[in-house]
């Protein structure tokens, strides 16, 4: 159980537990009509399903903050539908279904250190480091002479995901990628 909160503690960004699930307040407005009572109007997003809804709370309302923690984990392998990771401090292994890993799988390679968000000890989300380095397994050579700046070509990463890279990048090279934008940053000398 998380700490007990009152309506007065609610803010944009507060994480609550409602009906056993974690919610994030994505929008918040304090209202108080004339001589009336304070109203705390919230837009809530379910941190597991992503479903959003609006709800208005009053002064007497009490809440449990969502029992959330981030843990450093190392990605081990996946067997298609389930991803296996190891807690880097306790060495305990956990499993995450592919849908919770989501788009992070595009840049996830074995032994990568990631951060896993746990709700009541159960994994609900995975955050990659801001930058990862991945090898290009397939990319056709750039057309000779085409050096116009901004020209790019598709390149397949060792994860199977395809990104756009500059023409000079060759198959077999390692590139740095910003996982927040999913874009190529630079070539890494190996």
């Amino acid at each position, binding site marked *: 159980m998380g700490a007990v909160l009152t309506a*007065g503690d609610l803010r944009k960004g507060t994480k609550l537990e409602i009906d056993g699930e974690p919610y994030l307040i994505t929008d918040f*407005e*304090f*209202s*108080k*009509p*004339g*001589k*009336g*009572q*304070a*109203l705390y*109007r919230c837009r809530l997003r379910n941190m597991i399903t992503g479903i959003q809804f609006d709800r*208005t709370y*009053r*002064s*007497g309302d009490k809440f449990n903050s969502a029992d959330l923690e981030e843990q450093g984990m190392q990605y081990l392998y996946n067997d298609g539908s389930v991803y296996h990771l190891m807690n880097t401090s306790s060495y305990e292994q956990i499993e995450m279904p592919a849908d919770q890993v989501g788009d992070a799988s595009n840049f996830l390679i074995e032994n990568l250190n990631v951060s896993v968000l746990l709700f009541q000890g159960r994994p609900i989300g995975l955050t990659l480091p801001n930058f990862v380095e991945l090898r290009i397994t397939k990319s056709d050579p750039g057309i000779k002479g085409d050096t116009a700046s901004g020209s790019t070509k598709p390149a397949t990463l060792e994860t199977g995901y395809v990104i756009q890279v500059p023409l000079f990048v060759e198959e077999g090279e390692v590139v740095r990628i910003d996982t927040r934008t999913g874009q190529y940053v630079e070539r890494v000398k190996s």
Partner: protein
Amino acid sequence: MNGREREILAGKKRFLELRARALGLIRIFFDREGFLEIQTPALTTAPAPEPHIKAIAAGGGRFLSTSPELYMKRLLAAGFDKIYQICPAFRSGERGRLHHPEFTILEWYRLGADYKTLQDDCLKLVRSVCESAGPGILQRRGDRVLDPFGDWGRITVRDAFERFAGWVPEANPDQDRFDTDLVEKIEPNLGFPTPCILEDYPAGQAALARLKPGDQETAERFELYWAGIELANGFSELTEPSEQRARFETAIKQMQAEGTRPNMPEAFLESLEYLAPCAGIAFGVDRFVMLLAGADDIDSVVAFPPEIA
């Protein structure tokens, strides 16, 4: 002082200049109307007990003033007939786009007048400030233009609920339903493009207002809205001491159930014995300047919002 703060404060200069101009024009207006400017204590032993207004304890058995209302009425009871005040007011736990726990309140009171006279005052005051506050005020709010000079809107609480919320509040409506629908369904419709007066509250929402002579289910109370924002709350004052004491007792009971121990404002109740019919109003200066400035929150027109105060 870091660079970021210097930048924010410098960015507010235009709004703070407008604020100063508005305060000056408000004073000029009341001086011209023959009102006396008054100062009353910010530290008080007994703020008016009202269930949804939480006073901040200041130590030594005193509280920071939630409103100068009770002192102003004690002056009326002594025969001061037209008085006004501009001062800070303090209310615990209020923080939002339109709320600071410390805000600037303008109150004015008239002996021998009722809430209708105050409505006329509002119209004259707002127009007078807008006429002289200079170019560049009242910029568009989204796609809506604000206009203080056209005919003002007027609707009773009963009609507003019927029209916008689909139900009619009786004398003692369910407080939760009343407050929620007021905020979510009614306020967003009031005061476009000219200000709007929402008047005649159910008796259960009277606060310190008297009930309408001949209609004990309705209080002579109104609120001024502009651009969906509550700007002022005024009423014909309740001057009957036993009725006022009974309302305070009900409020104190409710507040005690919620864990606070408000004092009964005895000196104020005593003064009511001498108080002739009168009317008074509280007007939010920060919100008014915010609307003049075309800003989206009162933080923009206050030099130091609570988080950096």
